[in-house]
C-alpha cells in the first residue's frame, strides 16, 4: 500500500474529507479493517467507549446513516441520545446553536450531525468542545460515506491508487460525490463525473476530476461505477426533462455496465431509485457491492469514534 497511515487523527472532529490527510484516511481504513471483526462475534459489542456519550443530531431525514451510526455507537458501548428535527424543539424555532448549547449541558463527548446547511458541522465544531462528526451537510460533504466507499473499493482492489472510478448522477447536489472526489484524489485514484450538463458542478476542475455528459465514454475501463440518487428534494427546478428520459440516457443498465472493466463493481450510497438511475438487474447483480457498503459503514463509523475518543493526539499513551 502506497500510503503510510498516520499515527493519530490530528483534529478533534471529522467534518470533511478535505481536512483529512491521506495518512489519516489510511489510518481510519486500517482501523475499520479490525473493527469489521466485531460484527462477526457471538457478542457483537466491545466495552471500548463505556462512559462516552454520543448525541445524534439529525436535522434532515436519514434512515441508513442514522442507524449505521447508532449501531456503531452501541457496538462500542457508548451511550446514545437521538435528536431528530421532526421530534425536537428545532421545529419550535430554536436555532442550531441554542440546541447545541443545550445539548452540551448534558456533556456529550461526540455530536454526530446531519444538517441541510452546508458548513453547519464546521461552525458547530468551532464553538463546542465535543468531537463533531459530519453525517452529511447540505451539498458540501458526507465524509463517512466516502470513507466507507473507499473501504469497500479497497476490499476488492487492495489499493485505491490508479483505480478508475465513475461517479454518475446528480453530482451538483451530491455531498457524496464531493467527499468521494476529495478522498479519491488524495488517495491517487482517477475520478470521472457523469451527469447532464445541468447537474455537473461548476467546480469540477478544482476537484481534480474529469467530466462527461454521457455515461458510455466514461465507463470505458472503469473499475468502479458509483451511481447516485436523483435528489428531487434539492432540485430548485427540474434540471432534466423527465425521469423516463433520465433513465434512457444515464441509468446503469447491464448493456452499459458491460463497457466497464470486467472486474468492475457497482456501488450506490442509497436510497436507490430503481428504474431511474439504476436498473434492478444491475442493482441486484453479481457485480453489485451495495449491501457490502452498508455493512462496511458500521465499521468505518466505529473506527472514527474509536480514533476520536483519544482526544487530541499530542500526548501518546504510555504502556
Amino acid at each position, binding site marked *: 500500500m502506497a500510503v503510510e497511515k498516520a*499515527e493519530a487523527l490530528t483534529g478533534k472532529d471529522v467534518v470533511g474529507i478535505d481536512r483529512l490527510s491521506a495518512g489519516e484516511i489510511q489510518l481510519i481504513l486500517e482501523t475499520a479493517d*479490525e473493527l469489521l471483526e*466485531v460484527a462477526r*462475534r*457471538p457478542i457483537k459489542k466491545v466495552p471500548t467507549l463505556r*462512559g462516552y456519550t454520543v448525541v445524534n443530531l439529525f436535522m434532515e431525514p436519514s434512515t441508513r446513516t442514522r442507524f449505521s451510526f447508532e449501531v456503531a455507537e452501541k457496538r462500542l458501548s457508548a451511550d446514545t441520545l437521538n435528536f431528530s428535527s421532526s421530534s425536537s424543539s428545532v421545529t419550535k424555532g430554536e436555532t442550531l446553536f441554542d440546541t447545541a448549547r443545550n445539548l452540551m449541558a448534558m456533556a456529550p463527548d461526540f455530536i454526530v450531525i446531519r444538517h441541510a446547511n452546508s458548513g453547519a458541522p464546521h461552525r458547530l465544531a468551532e464553538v463546542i468542545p465535543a468531537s463533531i462528526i459530519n453525517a452529511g451537510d447540505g451539498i458540501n460533504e458526507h465524509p463517512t460515506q466516502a470513507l466507507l466507499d473507499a473501504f469497500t473499493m479497497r476490499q476488492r482492489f487492495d489499493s485505491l491508487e490508479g483505480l478508475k472510478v465513475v461517479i454518475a448522477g446528480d453530482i451538483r447536489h451530491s455531498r457524496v460525490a464531493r467527499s468521494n472526489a476529495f478522498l479519491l484524489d488524495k488517495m491517487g485514484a482517477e475520478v470521472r463525473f457523469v451527469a447532464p450538463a445541468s447537474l455537473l458542478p461548476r467546480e469540477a476542475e478544482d476537484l481534480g476530476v474529469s467530466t462527461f455528459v454521457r455515461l458510455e465514454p466514461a465507463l470505458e475501463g472503469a473499475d468502479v461505477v458509483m451511481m447516485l440518487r436523483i435528489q428531487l428534494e434539492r432540485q430548485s427546478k427540474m434540471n432534466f426533462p423527465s425521469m423516463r428520459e433520465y433513465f434512457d440516457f444515464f441509468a446503469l443498465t447491464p448493456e452499459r455496465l458491460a463497457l466497464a472493466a470486467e472486474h468492475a463493481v457497482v456501488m450506490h450510497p442509497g436510497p436507490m431509485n430503481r428504474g431511474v438511475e439504476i436498473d434492478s438487474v444491475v442493482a441486484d447483480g453479481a457485480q453489485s457491492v451495495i449491501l457490502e457498503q452498508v455493512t462496511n459503514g458500521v465499521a468505518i463509523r466505529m473506527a472514527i469514534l474509536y480514533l476520536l475518543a*483519544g*482526544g487530541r493526539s499530542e*500526548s501518546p*499513551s504510555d504502556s
Partner: protein
Amino acid sequence: MTADSSSQTRLLQVLDEAGMDRTIARMVAEIVERDGGDVMLVGIHTRGVPLAARLARAIEGTAGRKVALGRLDIALYRDDVGPWRPAHQQPVLKETVLPGPIDDRIVYLVDDVLFTGRTIRAALDSLVDYGRPRAVRLAVLVDRGHRELPIAADVVGRVLDTTATEDVQVRFAEVDGEDGVWIGREAGDGG
C-alpha cells in the same frame, strides 16, 4: 547482541537463543502433561503471537495432532483509555483471529511477559465475548512479578526477579530478527 543499548540503559542478557529453545520445550512438556494435545493456543499481540505459534508447532510434534492457534488484540478492552483520561493517542488495533468456537475448549492465553496482569484481565474479558471455554489457562515465557491484579500464570518459562522500573525485553526472530531475553536497567539504577 546489545547493539541498541544506549549510554543510559544497560542491557543484561538472561536467555540466549538456545536458552529460549530449552525454556519453550519445558513449557510444551508442561502443557502436554497437563492437558494433552487437545488445546487451543491464543497469542496476545505483539509477542504472544510468535510464542504461541512456536508452542503450537512443538505440541504438534509431541502430541502428534494439529493444535488450534489464534491471536488476540486486547486494545478494545484496555483499562487505561477512557473519557476520564487526559488526551492520548489511541492504541493501533491489530487483528483478532480465533481458529473456531472456543466453547468447551481448553484455551491457553499466551504472552511473552507477565507483569501487572492488566493485559491478561483485558484478554479474559475479550475471550468471554467469544464463548465459554471449559478452562482458560495462562502460559508466559517470563514472569517478572509486580502484579496489580489477582492473576497468576499456569505455565511459566522463567521467573525473573526485577524492580518495577527495569525493562524486560523479549525478542523473537519472527518479529525482532533475533531470539533472547534481556533486562534493561537505567545506568544509575543501582543494579
